[in-house]
C-alpha cells in the first residue's frame, strides 16, 4: 500500500496539506460531517454515492487518524452506527481549509 503522506515531497508547497483529508472521497465525507452533528452509514452512502467497500475503507482511514468517531450500535436486530467528527477532526479540517486556501491564493492568476 502506498503511504499517502510520502506522495508529496517535504519541501513542496502542498506538503502542508493533510493527505488523509485531501483524497476526494474522504474530503466529501468530512465536509458532510463538518456541517451536521452525526449521521449513519446509509445516509453517508446516499450523500456521497460511494460503494459500501469504498466507504468502509475511507471511514477506516479517517477513524485511524482520529478524525472521526464511529459509535457502533443496534436498532432492534439491525446494526446502526453513529458517525461523528471528533474535535481533532474538526481542527484538522479547519487547518486543511486554511492551508489549501493559502496555497491556492499564492498562485498567480
Amino acid at each position, binding site marked *: 500500500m502506498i503511504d499517502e503522506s510520502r506522495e508529496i515531497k517535504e519541501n513542496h508547497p502542498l506538503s502542508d496539506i493533510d493527505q488523509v483529508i485531501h483524497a476526494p472521497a474522504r474530503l466529501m465525507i468530512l465536509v*458532510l460531517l463538518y456541517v451536521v*452533528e*452525526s*449521521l449513519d452509514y*446509509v445516509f453517508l*452512502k446516499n450523500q456521497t454515492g460511494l460503494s459500501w467497500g469504498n466507504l468502509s475503507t475511507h471511514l477506516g482511514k479517517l477513524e485511524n487518524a482520529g478524525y472521526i468517531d464511529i459509535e457502533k450500535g443496534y436498532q432492534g436486530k439491525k446494526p446502526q452506527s453513529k458517525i461523528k467528527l471528533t474535535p481533532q477532526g474538526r481542527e484538522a479540517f479547519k487547518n486543511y481549509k486554511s492551508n489549501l486556501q493559502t496555497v491556492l491564493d499564492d498562485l498567480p492568476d
Partner: protein
Amino acid sequence: MSAQISLKDLEKNVFQKSFQDGLIDIQIGCVLVMFAVAPLLSPYLGDFWSSMIFLPFWGVIYLGVREIRKKIIQPRVGIVEFGKYRKTRQKKLNLVILVFNLLVLALGVASFFNFADLPGWVHPIRFSAVILVGFSLAGYMLEFPRLYFYGILISLAPLIGEFLYTTFHASHHGFPITFGITSLLIILFGLGTFLRLLKEHPVVSQEELE
C-alpha cells in the same frame, strides 16, 4: 469566505432533503381534510363535534407517519442529526408557533363574541391571513420553500370558497370544494414524493451494513 458559504449551503441542502419524503405533505393534507369534511358533518354532529372527531384521525396519521419514517424511510435514507444552528432554529420556531397559536386563539375568542356583527368576507380574509402568516413563518424558520407555496394555496381556499358561496350559492361557504381540492392536491403530491423515494432508495440489507 466562499468556502464558508458553500458549506452553509451544503448543510441547508442536507437539511432540506430531510423533508423530501412526502410525509409532511401527507400530514398537512390530512389536517386540511377536516376543513372539507367537518362542514358536511356539522348538521348531524354540531359544529364542535364535527371538528373534534378529527382529533383521533390526526392522532392516527401522526403515529402512522412516525412509524413509516422509522421503519420505511430511515432504513432507506439513513439517519442524520443536525448541529447547534438547526437546534437553535427549531427552538425559535417552537416559540414562534406558541406565540402564533396564542394569537390565533385570541382571534378565535374575539370572533366568538362578535361573530354576528362581522360582514361575510371578514372571516375568510382573517382565516387566510392567519394561514398565510403561519405557513410563511414555518417556511422561513425551517428554510422549507414549499411551505410558502402551501401557505398561498391554502389561504386561497377560504377566499375562493366565499366567492363560490356568494356567487353560486355553494354550500358551507364552498369549504368542501376548495379545501377538498387543496387537501387532495397536497396529499397526492406527498404520495408521489413518497413513492419516488421508495423507488430511488431500495432497502439496505443487513449484510451490507455489517
